[in-house]
């Protein structure tokens, strides 16, 4: 009898967690993500420490005598063209990737959720306007739009945040709008209406918690996409300027790859691959666990 005890933990979340725990791949991915998160936190602490002391952080100090050292006990992932430790720079890259993933989500998700809720709940003119707004945004070619915003805002992280954040709210807005339309007709919402509750209360206290799983899944799946875009932008020189972003590391590593300096390229590539893969797989698993109706694929 492995039926769960009905006295405790029958909420959606504990139910989903129970389902997720049986998925071995998802748990491995979760472990990888926790590891990356710790790296990013460590990177942030180091970064803030040097910023507070107003010194050049050690991952930026150049030492030309130690350039192009292959991986060794002193430098686990070798050193780059200016003698800087690849592993430390990789950790700083993780910090930037996390910042981009989180801050762009903090811009895009509230916009999308708020507009989606309003459109779904009120319908009519409000809905028409919001649908018009997101279909307009959706018709502009994505990457170019992001790059154009970054160009207008100026080079640097702010451009990356705004570019990605202001263009990627459309997907979640559509999803939330659809969900709210479905929930609006349900008995619990009708009951709240009958009690005379105000619309913000019905919308944000009653309906929103019921569609929250959509937000979680969207966050997990848009995080790697945002990281990928940042790498791409930094690589092109439009994104991060003076910090060791993964895109900048790939750009400098690719020149030296041809002369046999394989380590920088390999480890950066591996880091991006692992992070993106872990988030993608976890996102799929979360979707299956939270909302079995949305299952992808046949098994």
């Amino acid at each position: 009898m492995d039926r769960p005890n009905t006295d405790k933990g029958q909420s959606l979340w504990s139910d989903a967690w129970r389902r997720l725990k049986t998925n071995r791949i998802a748990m491995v991915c979760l472990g990888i993500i926790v590891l990356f998160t710790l790296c990013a936190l460590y990177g942030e602490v180091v970064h803030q420490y040097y910023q507070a002391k107003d010194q050049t952080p050690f991952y930026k100090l150049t030492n030309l005598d130690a350039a192009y050292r292959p991986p060794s006990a002193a430098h686990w992932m070798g050193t780059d063209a200016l003698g800087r430790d690849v592993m430390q720079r990789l950790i700083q890259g993780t910090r930037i990737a996390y910042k981009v993933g989180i801050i762009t989500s903090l811009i895009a998700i509230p916009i999308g959720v708020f507009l989606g809720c309003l459109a779904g709940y009120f319908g009519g003119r409000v809905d028409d306007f919001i649908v018009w707004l997101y279909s307009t945004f959706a018709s502009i070619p994505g990457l170019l739009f992001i790059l154009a915003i970054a160009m207008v805002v100026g080079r640097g992280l702010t451009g990356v945040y705004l570019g990605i954040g202001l263009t990627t709210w459309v997907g979640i807005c559509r999803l939330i709008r659809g969900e709210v339309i479905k929930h609006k007709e349900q008995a619990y919402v009708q009951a709240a209406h009958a009690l005379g509750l105000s619309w913000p209360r019905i919308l944000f206290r009653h309906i929103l918690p019921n569609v929250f799983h959509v937000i979680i899944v969207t966050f997990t799946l848009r995080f790697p996409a945002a990281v990928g875009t940042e790498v791409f932008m930094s690589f092109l020189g439009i994104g991060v300027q003076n910090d060791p972003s993964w895109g900048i590391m790939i750009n400098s590593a690719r020149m030296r790859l041809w002369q046999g300096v394989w380590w920088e390229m390999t480890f950066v590539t591996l880091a991006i691959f692992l992070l993106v893969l872990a988030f993608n797989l976890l996102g799929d698993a979360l979707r299956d666990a939270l909302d079995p109706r949305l299952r992808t694929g046949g098994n």
Partner: protein
Amino acid sequence: MPNYIVKRMLQMIPTVLGVILITFILFNVAGGSPALKVMGPHAQADTLEAFDEQRGFNKPLFFGFRTKTRALEDSDFERTAGDWLKQDGVTHTNGMIVLAEGGSYSIPLKFSLRDDCEYELVMEGRTDGFPMLGKNKLGFSRDWKKVTLRLQTPGKIVPVDAPVEIRSIRLRRLMNSPFDSQLLFYFRQLARLDFGVSHSTNQRVSKLLADGIVPSLMLTVPIFFIGLVTSIALSLFCAFWRDTWVDRFFVILSVALMSINYLVYIVAGQYFLAFKADWFPVWGFEDARYLALPVLIGVISGLGGSLRFYRTIMLDEAHRDYVRTARAKGVSKSRVLFRHVLKNAMIPIITNVVIAIPFLYTGSLLLESFFGIPGLGYLGITAINSSDVDVVRGIVLIGAFMFVIANLLTDICYAAVDPRVKLK
């Protein structure tokens, strides 16, 4: 049916207007005048003004009676008196300039004013005398006073009887019509199908776009078709072997392919296939051989996502009742798959395909800039790197319009196939 098409085309108008408005807000309102960004801080004021005049940036944004001019910078003489000090008899003290009596002083304009419109000069000053500006009385008194003058060509300031102290000055150009704004200029330009002029090459944007589209299509069309055929074939293969290790292998492969960054495909492809193995040329755009590697990379990088997508569609179809009926009647597994499932899966596949078509036009930004293919993606990246606003805006606009048109075509195709769509 004609009714439906007309109705659907009318629905297109708000979206097109929205796209125009968004590009306007992005490049004119948020971006401000790009002249400084493009030409740097040391450019001459008259070249900046000429740049703005050509692109309509020297007008009010939406509506307005007056607009800034670069002929005279607004100044409150807090730190510096600027060009005023070049004239004898001008001194700068305590956040104001003092024009000594007995001289005549010209306002240090960076370039001469236009004669087709009036200007408005606002000065704050005081004096004990009766100063003149050209033929007009300046109207200052003993206390600080703001004076507004309308003029076409400013004459010289002549302090009479006593020196004049000036605390702030600003010059505005008066618009002949308040509706003569940047927005109207932009709409007029688009109505003429004029996308402006690239400042870095001085060519018309429409010509640049026309030149870039062929190389872009030469790259993206093969990627599109090869990718489509491969992923549909593989997805049928997965559907045929579903829930076996073959299927699972492809599912894992597609997630792995999706997780590899685009950059990595390009760098690895150039390094291993072109440099180490020497199967392809590394860089350039001379004949078909040069396209082989970028096409291959494009196909592989897109394969993960589309394989997953088509596999889901195929499996959705494969669980339908008609499939079970056909199998029960003794139709073979492969025949059901190819004759029944594939045909019914065509509707979502076609939607996906038509929606992807506009993206063929923008090309692949990365592939083009890496392999030196002179297409629109390459053009776009160079334009963004040199802040070439008109080019970026042109590419964004055309891309968006093509997307809107493709959407229209999809919906019309749907309506032709399925009469229920029209009733919605």
